[in-house]
């Protein structure tokens, strides 16, 4: 709380919770188990990493161990859904890439009610290095028809999204996260699939972010405010279907836009937003993300700095895009 108190009224940060999104997800599954008896959890020997160890302990009969074999797990989830269960496929985001074609043919094409929940996305993975840092998952899963794609911003939203995707009938890909996450949403926040929220009002530029970049975008808004720039910050936690109305409204009202994601700059949130903007309300845009390269070992914050994903870089990009207003 101390952080946000020092920051005056503009950016809306609620400090750190100490909880990672994966922990929030794992605990939410336990909370929701009795209310939704039809969901089951599938693991590929990384329950401790994905947060599902909480569920394994609480509901061992509803927990299925697939071993280190993600392709079989992914397609088998399609089979379990075919007989009326709601399987949660849980693994690291990078292994969701490994089983991408199983998700495509055995889940998305038949529109099976499977929830793929991926921990360890992006540079947020940290020291494990490039092999584990999935920077392509949003692009890949977004390109699959029938697939809904979500990347929540904080533990509270992760917990709420977990229930929302159980209630939603159809295939979903949801990112969680490895590192302790900052809280950005108020306790009374209501998650709605496909709906973005404005976390910070502003009229000079809109920063549209997802996942860990939402907190960093609020950092950027704070930096910009000191320079007299009012930045609007939008939490676009549903990347597909994207909230077109919100994007168009923000483009109309602020006249320029920056997107921010812990993902390759190609194909993810930025691309999804640009597809809407360029067609229906062209305004200058800029993109924060990993610039089509692999990551490396390092602490998440060190990597965010090196790969230019932090608040100051977002703020700088915002200034650049503001300067181009009226040129489109």
């Amino acid at each position, binding site marked *: 709380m101390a952080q946000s108190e020092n920051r005056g009224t503009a950016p809306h940060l609620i400090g750190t919770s100490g909880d990672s999104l994966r922990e929030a997800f794992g605990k939410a599954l336990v909370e929701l188990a009795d209310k939704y008896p039809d969901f089951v959890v599938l693991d590929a020997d990384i329950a401790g990493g994905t947060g599902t160890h909480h569920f394994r302990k609480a509901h061992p009969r509803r927990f299925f161990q697939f071993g280190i074999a993600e392709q079989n797990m992914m397609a088998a989830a399609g089979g379990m859904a075919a007989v009326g*269960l709601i399987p949660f496929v849980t693994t690291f985001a990078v292994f969701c890439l490994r089983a991408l074609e199983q998700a495509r*043919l055995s889940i998305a*094409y*038949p529109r099976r009610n499977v929830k793929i929940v991926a921990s360890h996305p992006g540079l947020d993975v940290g020291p494990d290095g490039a092999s584990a840092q999935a920077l392509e998952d949003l692009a890949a899963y977004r390109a699959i028809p029938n697939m809904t794609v979500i990347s929540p911003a904080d533990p509270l939203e992760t917990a709420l999204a977990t229930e929302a995707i159980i209630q939603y009938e159809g295939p979903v890909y949801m990112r969680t996260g490895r590192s302790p996450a900052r809280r950005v949403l108020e306790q009374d926040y209501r998650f709605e699939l496909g709906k973005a929220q404005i976390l910070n009002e502003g009229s000079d530029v809109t920063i549209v972010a997802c996942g860990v970049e939402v907190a960093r975008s609020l950092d950027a808004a704070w930096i910009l405010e000191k320079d007299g720039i009012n930045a609007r910050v939008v939490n676009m936690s549903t990347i597909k279907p994207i909230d077109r109305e919100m994007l168009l409204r923000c483009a109309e009202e602020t006249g320029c836009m920056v997107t921010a994601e812990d993902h390759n700059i190609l194909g993810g949130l930025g691309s999804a937003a640009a597809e809407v903007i360029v067609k229906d309300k062209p305004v200058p845009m800029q993109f924060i993300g990993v610039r089509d390269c692999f990551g490396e070992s390092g602490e998440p914050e060190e990597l965010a700095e090196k790969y230019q994903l932090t608040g100051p870089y977002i703020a700088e990009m915002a200034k650049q895009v503001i300067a181009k207003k009226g040129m489109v």
Partner: protein
Amino acid sequence: MVHLNHTYENFNHYASTIRRYSLAAIYHAGSGHPGGALSCADLLAYLMNREIKWKPENTGYGQENRLVLSKGHACPALYAAAAEQGLLQKKALLELRKLGSLMQGHPHVGCLSWVETSTGSLGQGFSVAIGMALGLRYKGELSRTYVILGDGELQEGEIWEGAMFAAHHKLNNLCAIIDYNKMQSDDLNENIIGLEPLPLKWEAFNWHVIQIDGHNFEQIEEAVEEAKMIKEKPVVIIAHTIKGKGVSYMEGSPLWHGSVKLSSEELEQALSDLDTRKEDIGRFLDGAV
């Protein structure tokens, strides 16, 4: 062992019908995979007729057992078998691979609910069947899940992921049937990536292995009944078959794996090999079925 007191004439007749319609459908489609459809026609005829309990209204929903064709490219045979069960109009079979048709080039459960899952990418149907068997057991249902695999398909790593999983979890309600015609797209298995010793591989993965002649209905029946008695393991039936079975110029030739275009002369010869009546050959050629 259950020995039913009957001849297998009906099954032979059923399988011949599957073969004729499969070939006619591929001829009218202008493409498709005849070799592997013909090799599993007898297996499909038996399973569709005996093991899948179709509901009277033929909606395809709620059948007692499940059958997944993991080698989805053999779907002309599955569609023809379904037509024999009244799930499809025979005329519709000739819409195979056509725009807007329910008979997609590989089975799609979004078009035909009774195909259970969408297949066509090898290895996946096996895992889906495993998920079905696991889910049905979890729900306390007693029905069985059958899955037909191609031999070339066994080169997919996913198969062995699934084989390990199914044995570890003792999925005794799962029965895999390998259409072991010894050939794949380009050549003999042994010239691509050899599968032998195949029975030993499955035994080593802790499956119960039964080997049969996949064109002999008595052996098919005995194997399927034996599988029901196995309680501690999943069962794999290695069905030795002939690629292109029943058609003189296709038998034993990987050239007819597909996707191939059949000429009218080739269809005529094939139907003749299958003891089709002359007037019926004309109907198949004209699409007037």
